[in-house]
């Protein structure tokens, strides 16, 4: 049985889709079967970031409604053969998703894949709550900004109350991924520090992704950053985050800071 992970944030534009693609590709490169699922019905993006937009025939809504079978809708990645995409529909809206339908699709994906990574839409409405509904674990993507951190706090509350696991009295394990971290702005005190973010959200950290032109370039050419720029700082940070997600214990470094300081902090805060 595969593990279902939701990538969520509350706030838009923080890097959910980029992170979904990057983590999915990083895990799939290790040989495990990964499906990335776009829940952003009506505003789909994951197909573009994955470079699969010209091969979409059926989508999540078709499968949820029983119009198409799951294997018909899954798109295999051209670069990594264990990576699949289940795209969202661009023409429908989130009301087309039903709870029963989503449950059925997730259950089927769980049987076929080692990892099912769901890219949540922004917000806290139907699309976002259905994306997290059947998750076993969550990656909360946050920028080191007050608004993003508060929205993430809200999402963590929903993960603890509105998911199927929470309703059964179980926990949804949560992982924090800080994206768009700018060492220059952090040094000038223009962003929240990593310590601030951890203090407010108090969930374990799996990675700090530096703000980088490479990420933008990767999106534009339609490849996950962990595939096309695998030696760049953000790609390395995503690869490490994927390994931590899989349970490995790796040292954490704050981009632009000397090693050592943060290891102490991380050991204390998030171990």
């Amino acid at each position, binding site marked *: 049985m595969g593990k279902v992970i939701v990538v969520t944030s509350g706030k838009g534009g923080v890097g959910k889709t980029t992170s979904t693609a990057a983590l999915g590709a990083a895990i799939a490169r290790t040989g495990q079967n990964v499906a990335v699922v776009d829940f952003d019905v009506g505003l789909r993006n994951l197909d573009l970031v994955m470079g699969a937009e010209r091969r979409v025939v059926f989508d999540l809504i078709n499968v949820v409604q029983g119009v198409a079978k799951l294997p018909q809708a899954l798109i295999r990645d051209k670069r990594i053969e264990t990576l699949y995409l289940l795209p969202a529909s661009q023409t429908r809206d989130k009301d087309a998703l039903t709870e029963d339908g989503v449950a059925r699709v997730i259950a089927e994906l769980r049987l076929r894949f080692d990892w099912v990574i769901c890219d949540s839409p922004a917000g806290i409405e139907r699309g976002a709550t259905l994306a997290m509904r059947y998750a076993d674990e969550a990656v909360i993507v946050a920028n080191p900004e007050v608004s993003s951190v508060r929205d993430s*706090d*809200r999402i963590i*509350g929903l993960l*603890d109350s509105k998911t199927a696991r929470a309703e059964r009295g179980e926990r949804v394990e949560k992982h924090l991924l800080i994206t768009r971290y700018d060492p220059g702005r952090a040094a000038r005190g223009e962003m929240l520090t990593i310590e601030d973010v951890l203090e*407010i959200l*108090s969930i374990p950290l799996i990675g700090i992704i530096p703000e980088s032109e490479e990420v933008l370039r990767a999106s534009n050419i339609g490849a996950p950053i962990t595939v096309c720029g695998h030696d760049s700082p953000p790609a390395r940070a995503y690869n490490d985050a994927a390994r931590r997600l899989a349970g490995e214990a790796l040292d954490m470094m704050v981009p632009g800071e000397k090693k050592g300081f943060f290891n102490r902090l991380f050991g204390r805060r998030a171990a």
Partner: protein
Amino acid sequence: MSGVARQRSSMRLRGRSYMAFALAPEPPVAEWLAELDDWLRTSAGFFAGRPVVLDLAAVTLTSSAVTHLISELAARGIRIMGIEGADAEKLGPGLPPVMLGGRQAALEAIEARPRQGAPVATAPEPASLLLQSPVRSGQSVFFPTGDITIVDSVGSGAEVVAGGSIHVYGTLRGRAMAGTSGNREARIFCLRMEAELLAIDGFYRTADDMGTSHRTGPVQAWLDGEALMIAGLDRSS
């Protein structure tokens, strides 16, 4: 201390509905008051501390007559929280607000509270609520019958409402409202204060009114008259 907070009227942050008694005077009002006196002789203190609405539909009174009637009722220990069945424009400022949309309700709903001096044997309600996980943004904790203790932080955009005191063994970043059922002795304690709003019995201060002097170290807030006071717990208060 950054000085005494400005005086504020009671806070109305959210819509609520309540049960209230409706007193409906009938003309002539003087005789009605005499009847009320007769009745009160056998049920002294009945209205003490109870919410009462004045229904003026059956009488035609000027603004000053209404003021007089309300002071007459106040002399009998009856405080009027609102007026029904009257034209808002005819009543001047200084009178209780005009209430609309009232519906009939069974008296038991308001009688539920035991009468003063007549203790009723019921199982004691829990006097405190203990939470051991963070209160996240958007969550609301409401415990009208006693204290709330949170052994973690309260996030920005979260809300904690207690009938008694509020204790936060973490950082308080959201809103904390203590003593909401009229408990002026209630206090708010936290290890670190970055609250958006603090309130005790309806008297409140927003983050803007608090300054930043309490941002480090443990803090308590209490009510002094109508001023919400905030001071560090390490300093004498």
